[in-house]
């Protein structure tokens, strides 16, 4: 029986421990995390870029005080990079030693057959764990302590790799032909993330709990900014959120994500900005948007927003700071 040590007491417990790790966690997310830890099922997290999919796994490891083992996927990733490789150079070194020792080993062997058999017995030395370079999957399986295994951007890996992964995820054991079967001491808590570059197979999805993380709502995004950008003015945080959320409604090539919201806020905070104005927006927008076409579109939109915010602020200066300034 494999020990299982990931336990949250309740959904509230997840929310609380995640908050302690500086992760603002919607109840939906907490529910899935809680279920995954209880049902020992992997979570497949999907959603647009930069909504905190990778961060979720990191925070999960932190919250449970587990080691985080990360497997970053890419096109062409194969078993040897994900599971283990033999360390050829070291093996070679040992063959040299073996060569020197071979005389001793076969000394006194009555015939060729016996000599060969004696040499064959040394194979064990040769193909032993000593020569294996463990890659993330094997490390996760053999870890003496419980781990969170993050399989990041699985959609970038090829479909064959997905099939291979499926086997690993279904029984958490791998067989190394020369060594036999290695079984997990602790079933890792697995988080797979996907940006939806391609649709994952049904088989994989069946094994996982599914979590779709979308862009956060205003309240949450504001909370994230206040948490992650020290020294940001409350009013600026609100203005940034209003602006970003308005931009997300436009048809953009690349919609700004939370990381970009944070980058932008950091840039503005470095410039000691307390409130947005049109010139500032023009100067700093490149931290928020990556494409020329998007920037042009956004400038037009934001200029209007800033103007409206101004008008409102001067109309009701006393409350402007706490209000939803742009709408």
């Amino acid at each position, binding site marked *: 029986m494999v020990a299982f040590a990931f336990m949250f007491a309740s959904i509230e417990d997840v929310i609380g421990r995640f908050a302690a790790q500086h992760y603002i966690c919607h109840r939906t997310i907490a*529910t899935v995390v809680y279920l995954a830890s209880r049902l020992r099922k992997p979570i497949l997290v999907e959603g647009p870029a930069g909504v905190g999919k990778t961060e979720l796994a990191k925070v999960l490891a932190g919250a449970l005080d587990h080691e985080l083992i990360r497997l970053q996927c890419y096109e062409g990733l194969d078993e040897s990079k994900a599971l283990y490789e033999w360390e050829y150079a070291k093996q070679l070194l040992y063959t040299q030693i073996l060569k020197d020792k071979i005389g001793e080993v076969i000394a006194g062997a009555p015939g060729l057959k016996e000599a060969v058999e004696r040499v064959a017995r040394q194979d064990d030395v040769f193909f032993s764990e000593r020569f294996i370079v463990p890659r993330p999957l094997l490390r996760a399986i053999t870890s003496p302590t419980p781990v969170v295994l993050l399989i990041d951007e699985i959609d970038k890996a*090829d479909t064959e790799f997905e099939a291979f992964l499926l086997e690993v995820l279904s029984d958490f054991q791998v067989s190394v032909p020369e060594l036999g079967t290695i079984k997990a001491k602790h079933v890792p808590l697995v988080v797979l993330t996907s940006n939806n570059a391609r649709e994952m197979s049904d088989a994989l999805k069946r094994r996982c709990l599914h979590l779709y993380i979308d862009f956060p709502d205003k309240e949450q995004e504001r909370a994230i900014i206040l948490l992650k950008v020290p020294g940001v003015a409350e009013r600026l945080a609100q203005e940034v959120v209003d602006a970003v959320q308005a931009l997300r409604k436009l048809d953009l090539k690349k919609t700004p994500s939370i990381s970009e919201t944070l980058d932008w806020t950091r840039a503005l905070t470095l410039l000691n900005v307390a409130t947005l104005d049109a010139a500032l927006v023009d100067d700093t927008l490149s931290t928020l948007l990556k494409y020329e076409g998007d920037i042009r579109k956004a400038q037009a939109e934001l200029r209007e927003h800033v103007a409206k915010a101004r008008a409102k602020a001067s109309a009701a200066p006393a409350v402007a700071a706490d209000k939803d300034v742009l709408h």
Partner: protein
Amino acid sequence: MDDTIIAFVALLRRNGVRVSFAESMDTFRALDLVGLGSRAGVKDVLRATLVKRAVDHPTYDHLFDLYFSGVGEIVKDAESRAMEGLDLDPAEYQRLLEDLARFLEAQGIGTSELTRALLRQDTARLERLLREASQRAGVQRIERTFQEGQFAQGLQQTLGVAEVARELQGISDALGAGDPDPRRRQMGRLVDRRLQDLQEMIRRMVRGELEQHDVGQRDAARMQQLAEKSFYYLSEDEIRRMKDAVTKLAQRLKNALAVKRRSARKGAFDVKDTLRKNLQYGGVPFKIRFDRRKRVKPQIVVLCDVSDSVRNVSRFMLQFVYSLQDLYAKVRSFVFVSDVGEITKLFEENEIHQAIDQAIRGNVINVYAHSDFGRAFRMFHREHLAAITRHTTVIVLGDARNNYNLPHEWVLKEIKQRAKRLIWLNPENRMTWGFGDSEMDRYQPYCDVVEECRNLRQLYRVVDRMVVG
């Protein structure tokens, strides 16, 4: 609850959400953990365990709301209407119900389960009775509006409404007997309207089922129609709605190409490389090297006709091209009418609809010129031939209507020689090729594949064949 979940899973399946048996088992285990206390909680649990494709979320949300609040809400609505009708606040209403229960007991009047539930406003029981009867009566089989009456009748029979009506009538008579005090008269009014409330609940149940049926069906049917409709007649809005389908198609092409590439990967033993790599081990050939032919990413060059005669076709095709380009690094896209212009960068840097608009509204090349395939091909030959290598698949999208200009088919011949493959997709009916100013017959011999591609369904087929061939 188990039956309810099983029925809900069946409902999801009917609406095209793929749910396996194992997944519904997960749902039960998960619900045990989280409990049924909060509706939102249950909704999260079911979503995480049953709905694994984000595209199914809207369907799921809609069905969940219909199914799980459906009956409950119907029952609650009936209750508030009764209160309103009698002009009572909830506390007064509750007291009236209690008085009525005492009266029935005093009179020794027994009632059926349904009547009792109605008169005590036992919401949970009402809900269960309605749901069970609805299942037994097969109301979920309803498909059309005109069947509402027929299914409502079936549900009434299964519920035993006639019996309820008789019982209510009896109670009403008992309440009205002799010279009733105002309280008894009030109770009488309550009893009298409960039958009406029940009928209303039945009507709404049936309507709800009809809507559940419709959600998935409607969308599927609409997509079906669009897939068959000729590109020529698509509206801009319809084209936009096909975006997901087109993206999937591009993905499919990519996945298939990736698989083919990998299976061709293990090459032959490479002597030179093996020796070189093993120098560090004193020439003992330890690391055996195989000739891993360089992993060639598929390269694609697309030439898309954007002349006025195929305007909507181009809009659609460019959507496909955009998705392709989004997926592969190595796609170069061109548009032509009588000039040719590259739009690769435009597509990289702009959002899809904006990019397409610019490409077909004359920002790249003059789109109001008369089509001249020959001239455009020659221009491509002069300026962009280097884009084509022996790894390139070239795709031409166009109707080959050349306004009787010179076709210059020698360009295609040369392209075919350089490229891995040359594919021509023509949005016109095959019957019309070669007639009038169509030069398709002249171009065809130089293409590896020529396909009629007039609608999404045909495009699917074309991609399928490319994947196999």
